[in-house]
């Protein structure tokens, strides 16, 4: 799975996710990636989110929307909301994977509960940070 979230100069957020799904999938299985609210969500009031991981769990946990909802209704920061959903809610269900997200203030987050996640961030200064492993 690949994904991107962005904030533009006009203050508009967007999120996108694209995937091939799981190896050897049958029966026209689809995962969370095309499910709005599970693998992808964007709301200018809160954040934009793209997920990657075990899709069935992301669907059941409504991961992307849940992060936005925690910000909107409980006033959590993006980092707090992402950590709550990925490290507690999703993990306690037995689901693994991660998300990338950006909020309306341009805060950048990559949160995952797996050994690694291919990821990169770029800020307004053009500073690019690339990561693969947990550290």
């Amino acid at each position: 799975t690949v994904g991107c979230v962005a904030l533009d100069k006009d203050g508009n957020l967007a999120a996108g996710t694209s995937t091939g799904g799981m190896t050897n999938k049958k029966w026209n299985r689809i995962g969370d990636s095309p499910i709005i609210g599970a693998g992808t969500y964007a709301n200018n009031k809160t954040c934009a989110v793209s997920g990657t991981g075990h899709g069935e769990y992301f669907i059941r946990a409504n991961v992307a929307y849940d992060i936005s909802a925690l910000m909107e209704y409980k006033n959590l920061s993006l980092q707090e909301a992402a950590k709550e959903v990925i490290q507690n809610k999703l993990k306690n269900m037995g689901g693994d994977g991660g998300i990338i997200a950006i909020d309306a203030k341009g805060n950048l987050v990559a949160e995952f509960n797996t050994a690694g996640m291919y990821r990169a961030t770029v800020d307004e200064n053009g500073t690019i940070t690339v990561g693969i492993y947990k550290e």
Partner: protein
Amino acid sequence: QNNFGLVIHGGAGTILKKNLTPELEAQYKETLEKAARKGYEILQNGGTSLDAVEQTIHILENSPLFNAGKGAVFANNEKNELDASIMEGKTLNAGAVAGVTNLKNPISAARKVMENSAHVLLAREGAEEFAASQGLEVVNPDYFFTEKRYQSLLHAKQNLSDDSKSAYVDPYINDYKFG
């Protein structure tokens, strides 16, 4: 805090340093950096977040390294079945496609669904027909073939005799966690 910016991912899972050669690790980093730079250029020049997301994902879809577009994993029927979605934070508009097999860049199909249809999610042949009618690039499904992913499928089939299991679970192969 930033006035603009972006984050990208190329999948999560059992990604351990011991499983990646230095050459492969460098390829991943180079492609991720190339994608991030593309998105930055769009945003820096006043482009929209939607354009940045779509064009950044094109780079990842067009790379055989990641499980999307070229390089996607194989389904049991030995086809590549691709899913994608996109959402705009200003309007809460969204679009998605599922199970498409011949669209070079599924993320663009998702955007066309969002912007030029009354629907949110289109699937399989209908999604392909709609995307083609919108002028998106249609490719022969062979375009998505990569030997590495095909071997992963064969390995999965050899290791799964229980027909109730639909997907391959192998902690030593990254494919599974990329879903």
